[in-house]
């Protein structure tokens, strides 16, 4: 026999057939229901904004890898695609397209590639892009087209506030929850997504469907979404029980804004979340608390993106302080010796 074709390498000799690419494309699949709903609600605008975000994210990654870093091109790995989709999901569907492109440049160029590319970034790239736009262009970033009435018109959409925005402004004007209730969408409307807001955060139902897919495919574990939403529910629940005229109920908090999108898709980003189950729980409690503090007491009506970015910064610390339980506690007598 010929032994020239025999290779020798260290064990293990077999490998599971799960790859990073498959994981990334599972996330993309999980985002499809929410994308379809947003096209249904916002029409052409949602499609255009998402396409522009995806194309510019891929293009910027390509250009940076080819001309600045001069490394191998890896835009096919699916991660820039996800960044594009998630960035678009956090934008109003009528945002000027040049802003979408600027947001993509910040997301990919600053938040991802300048840290070293896939796996090295500390902050969630899509959220960095979103927050950059929110701070730079607050007016455009908080003008949302009203729902369904104009889903075939892109340019001259009438703008309406988000449910969280209605509450924030109303409470600042001295109104109570009873006064505000007529201006708010019903919980069923919010669950299905028939409210104002960023294009992908609309339908809790579609997002939960996607989240369940990720859980079933074991791309994410329950720890982050359940803990984060649970913390939000518990904290807002306490305030609501104390004074229901000043604070809205927990279910409202979970169904509005970016809570569900954040819990299933943004906070669970593999690269920027902790690597142990204990760490994930700590991380998610932090996000829940910060979100609620911003929503109830901060200047912004919504705080999920800020909360996730703040907790992203703590991930290295969490990783080194919440380690997995090591097998076999040592015998003390032997340590002394």
């Amino acid at each position: 026999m010929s032994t020239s074709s025999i290779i020798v390498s260290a064990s293990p000799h077999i490998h599971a057939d799960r790859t990073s690419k498959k994981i990334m494309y599972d996330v993309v699949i999980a985002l499809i229901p929410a994308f379809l709903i947003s096209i249904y609600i916002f029409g052409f605008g949602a499609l255009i904004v998402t396409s522009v975000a995806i194309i510019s994210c891929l293009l910027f990654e390509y250009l940076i890898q080819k001309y600045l870093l001069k490394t191998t091109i890896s835009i096919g790995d699916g991660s820039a695609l996800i960044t594009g989709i998630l960035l678009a999901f956090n934008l109003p569907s009528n945002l000027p397209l040049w802003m979408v492109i600027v947001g993509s440049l910040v997301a990919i160029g600053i938040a991802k590639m300048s840290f070293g590319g896939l796996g090295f970034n500390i902050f969630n790239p899509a959220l960095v892009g979103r927050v950059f736009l929110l701070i730079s262009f607050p007016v455009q970033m908080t003008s949302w087209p009203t729902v369904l009435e104009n889903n075939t018109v892109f340019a001259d959409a009438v703008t309406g506030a988000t449910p969280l925005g209605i509450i924030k402004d109303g409470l600042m004007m001295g109104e109570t929850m009873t006064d505000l209730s007529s201006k708010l969408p019903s919980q069923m409307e919010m669950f299905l997504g028939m409210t104002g807001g960023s294009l992908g955060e609309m339908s809790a139902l579609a997002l939960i469907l996607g989240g369940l897919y990720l859980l079933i495919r074991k791309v994410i574990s329950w720890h982050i979404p359940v803990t984060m939403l649970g913390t939000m529910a518990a904290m807002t629940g306490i305030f609501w029980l104390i004074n229901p005229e000043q604070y809205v109920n927990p279910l409202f908090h979970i169904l509005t804004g970016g809570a569900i999108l954040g819990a299933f898709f943004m906070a669970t980003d593999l690269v920027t979340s902790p690597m142990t189950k204990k760490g994930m729980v700590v991380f998610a409690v932090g996000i829940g608390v910060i979100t609620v503090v911003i929503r109830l007491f901060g200047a912004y009506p919504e705080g999920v993106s800020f909360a996730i970015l703040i907790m992203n910064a703590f991930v290295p610390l969490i990783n080194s302080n919440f380690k997995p339980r090591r097998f076999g506690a040592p015998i003390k007598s032997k340590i002394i010796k």
Partner: protein
Amino acid sequence: MLKTFQLGGIHPPENKLTAEKSIQKMAIPKVVYVPIAQNIGIPSEIIVAVKDTVEIGQLIAKSGGFVSSNIHSPVAGIVTKLDKIVDTSGYKKQCIVIRTDEKNLSNFEKIIYPLKTNIELSSTEILQRIADFGIVGLGGATFPSHVKLHINPDKKIEYLIINGVECEPYLTADHRLMLEKSAEIIVGIKILMSALQLKKAIIGIENNKKDAIALFKNLTQNESKIQVASLKVKYPQGSEKQLISALLKREVPKNGLPPDIGVIVHNVGTIFAIYEAVQHNKPLTERVVTVTGKNLKNPANFWVKIGTPISDLIKEVGGLPEGTRKIINGGPMMGKAIKNTDVPITKGTSGILVIAEEEASRKKTENCIRCGECVFVCPMGLEPHLLMSLAERGLFERALAEDVNSCIQCGSCSYVCPSNRPLLDYIRFGKNSVKNLTLIQN
């Protein structure tokens, strides 16, 4: 609920192709190559010379120290060479080459030992016999059994655990042995229990061997001291520490050994070898080997004389198939890849696995996406991604502080990594460097 260990673990495809195939006796090889380094620890010392005539079972290399073992001739024949040959470790090792005497009828006698249940030897005699007859751990680790059985008097042993898990994919040697030699294994267990005055024994078998579980449950119906436990299928349950944790929920301390928590563990193959040594005066000169692979014509289980070249076994199963890319001594998770088939079977060879390109080749290493899979599957609660990066950067002291030495090298981390990162390679490098570091410091 089936028992299993708590931390980590993986579920690779089982591929037990030979589970239904009874163990065949291999023909006596024309030449045997008996390496003298067949156990963990000190190699044995050769006590024969070229041109010596040796009988079956004659001592040919004696124990080189406490953690060492005797080696006996697997055949009757003439020592033709004392040479260095490449063994399964990949290194050249001293080896006794014996040409089988084809006229010596003892080579071809078919000895069928009747089951012998009454134990005549005393405790000390049993332990002496195990040491004299070259018994080592046959699960693959080849740790000399008499060392394992030499219990410090201040340790109280409660349980003897019999490892019939065989969690490596493809391998079926232990499974077949349990089915075909169950009564002998029960006697072997009793021998060890009487030698160490133990009150409880547990046979741990994974639930993919239901026939073996049923058989042993049946045989132990009237044995109040021997239990049979069926375990959930999960790799690496056959590892001593994981098996104890699954059966007793006790964890071997990271700076300790099983006797520290009142347990000793022996593989079923070792138990059978002890039975033969004690009851039938037979030294360890042959073992069961699974020869398997998806592309082999007739994958099979064999009784093989120690020292038989692997090529003889491959011939027996229909030759190396076209497109073979890897030949592995052992299972696919922890076995060692070997360069060619001239290497002989040793006491630690539980299987020979032949795999083709699609399974054998490693895929391109990509960036770590920090998914944490390696952490979730590590049965020792380590952080493989961290240990790899520490080893990569030469930070061995930190690797030591992060318990790199607790790694049992099961390969679960490398198996699951979606970015195909060579985690275990770097962890091994880290472990070795830590060892050298501590040697220098002392």
